[in-house]
């Protein structure tokens, strides 16, 4: 029965992607961009969701894929392993560590959110979740795993977000910041911000501004949204470019840029400074000053200074929040 259900899930995803591809060929302008972004989201989700806990096979499959697809498969592997109650493999490739940990964190976060839904005290659930992340993650990655709590809460149980936020406010700025960062990342993927009418990214931005109850939350939600948007749309920089042009007067530009830069650093950590990243940074925008200020300059600086430090010290969790 489960194989039938799996096939029933994969078929509509495949059909959706094919349909989106056909529409892209027939459309133009802004509508084209929204549908293109939808296609990227669907593909990313399909890769993530379709990954099993067969570590050796999935690592081999990931190695054979293009860098962008590899990222989602690795995150899916981290999720599947944790969902099966199994730890991340020992001696995992350094380049795979970030997505494996974010996937693992998401699986733990889903469980924590469902426990709160069933009546467990939010503070207790969050503390247990944090302890599990710390226990299961390599040094320097626990915070990356924890960030998945905001994503899990916002996608699966949005009504619990205020309660969880209040519980986290009492546990320190670091955890609270990560939660809202994850929420922002989740806003990019929630169903009401997926379908390509009326500019879904603009809706996500509006929610990232409105849903957090304080500045720390808003800044991190914006950064998280930017993080997700950058990685999903990395192969199509015009998507991010158009978004930035529509929101040239973004109130927290540094927070949004933080998210873009963090995503670029993660990409560089996983795939190295490759052709996709170079093409992204070198994108010829219709507003070159804006692209330079918000994307290229901060990214190049981070690649030159911060990336070596990350590769040396391994504190990748610092990319998953702004304090």
């Amino acid at each position: 029965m489960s194989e039938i259900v799996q096939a029933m899930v994969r078929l509509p995803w495949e059909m959706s992607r094919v349909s989106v591809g056909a529409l892209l060929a027939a459309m133009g302008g802004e509508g084209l961009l929204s549908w293109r972004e939808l296609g990227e989201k669907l593909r990313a989700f399909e890769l993530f969701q379709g990954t099993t806990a067969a570590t050796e096979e999935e690592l081999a499959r990931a190695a054979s894929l293009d860098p962008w697809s590899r990222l989602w498969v690795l995150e899916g592997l981290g999720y599947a392993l944790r969902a099966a109650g199994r730890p991340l493999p020992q001696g995992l490739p350094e380049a795979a560590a970030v997505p494996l940990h974010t996937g693992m964190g998401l699986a733990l976060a889903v469980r924590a959110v469902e426990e709160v839904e069933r009546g467990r005290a939010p503070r207790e659930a969050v503390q247990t979740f944090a302890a599990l992340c710390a226990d299961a993650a390599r040094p320097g990655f626990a915070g990356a795993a924890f960030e998945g709590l905001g994503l899990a809460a916002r996608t699966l149980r949005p009504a619990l977000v205020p309660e969880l936020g209040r519980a986290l406010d009492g546990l320190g700025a670091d955890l609270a910041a990560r939660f809202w960062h994850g929420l922002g990342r989740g806003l990019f993927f929630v169903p009401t911000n997926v379908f390509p009418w009326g500019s879904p990214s603009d809706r996500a931005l509006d929610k990232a501004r409105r849903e957090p109850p304080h500045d720390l939350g808003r800044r991190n939600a914006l950064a998280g949204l930017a993080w997700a948007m950058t990685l999903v749309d990395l192969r199509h920089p015009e998507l991010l470019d158009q978004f930035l042009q529509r929101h040239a007067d973004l109130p927290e530009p540094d927070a949004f840029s933080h998210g873009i830069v963090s995503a670029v650093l993660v990409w560089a950590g996983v795939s190295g400074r490759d052709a996709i990243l170079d093409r992204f940074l070198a994108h010829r925008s219709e507003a070159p000053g804006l692209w330079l200020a918000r994307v290229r300059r901060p990214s190049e600086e981070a690649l030159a200074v911060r990336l070596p430090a990350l590769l040396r010290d391994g504190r990748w969790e610092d990319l998953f929040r702004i304090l």
Partner: protein
Amino acid sequence: MADRADLFAPLTRALDEMGRDLGQGIDGAVSRTVQGLGRRDTAQPGTTAGFTADERQILDRVDEYLSRGLDLDRWWRAASSPGAFEDRFELGRTFNEPARSFGFYDTAQVAGRRMPIMGNFQEMFYDFPKSPRADRAAAALWMRDQIREFVLRSFMRVSDFREPEGYAEADVAAGRSRGGALSWCPREDAARKGFGFQQLFYKLAGTGEIGRFPEDRRFAIVDQREIGPRYAWILLKVRIFDFNFTIRPLGPDGPRLVLPLQEDSYLVVSRDFVRDENAPRPDLLGRYGIGYAFIKNPTEGFFAFGPGEFDAAIERIDFEVDTAGTTRVAMVFVANRPERVANLTLDPFDWGLRLTELMSLGTASPVLQPVRDLLTAVSPFRELRFDPVYTYVDLANLLTGGVAARELCISREQLEKEFLVKHFMQHYQTVAGSLATWRLVKDWSDEANLPDWVRHGRSF
């Protein structure tokens, strides 16, 4: 004249909030549906580590309910010594055997909140060695060692037992009658008593890996001394045989409603629940025991209380051997006080789904679960529930000004006490039944020569 924008501001805000809530509701419902549809089979080729969605639902609950069980256990350890409870009452009577038993109500800190709890405690004589006066010290030590092996290795394998049955010879051999329900011929059904444990899953202490016990080892419950060093926890399923809950709305001579609480219940055992103590007190040679926390079933059924429906519950069974070798067993059960006994939903969508599941003999459940999740989020009837049992109790007391409770014992407390009595009797029968098994084996430490049915966990 007030600004028109001011006049409409509250309405606009309300509409905004409704829109936001609706949007978030859609996000959650659709996301959960997609998650449920895409739940992956995590089987790795060549291993037995694949779990179904139903199994993962149980496994996902282990940490939470183990934590709650440990909270209750800590409460019991603190409360049991002084013996002070908010309310303590006599529970159960035994004759011919020295025993101590009582029920109690109290409040405990569980899962970060104050939880009203109830429970029962009973202590009874189990056995003593019969030996010449000169050998009594050696006999007491022998008894201690035997009890230790029996309790920690074999008790959970033999805790269900089959009652001896008398029968009259029939012209037709039992089981060969073709009359079905009309036949009066004796049947071969076994009347089981006690607790039937099966071990399903484990978590390894070292790697944290979760695995499934092989089918042929389900009843051979692991030596409890392996929990901690080898297993972080084990997850069991227990069926409490012959656990029927009887309600007599019109008194003891009137018609009665028998609720057969035959549902399997999931349990988790961790190191904290295993007692393996040599000389814990000057008057004791040893104290050895088993225990577990109950896990609440993930799917809601008709019964809102009972095995599989506790918000938090534990059971401990400890055997103490004193310096003379006399062995006593102490049993304690603690659980949350029920808020409902029965769970009749008034949601027609839910009825429709249950009917579909029933008609499909359960095969449609995996496909229907995401639909159920979606309807749970949007159905306006989802919170409408009705407990016919407590509603009757509350109505009876409302109409009689409390006379029903004071004079006729129609009260929630009475139902709770009857439940505790039932539980008390079940444990009494389990321990009393185990005595025959205990006496049947000459040497519980000689594992190689234990009867097959003890080693494999199938009672006779």
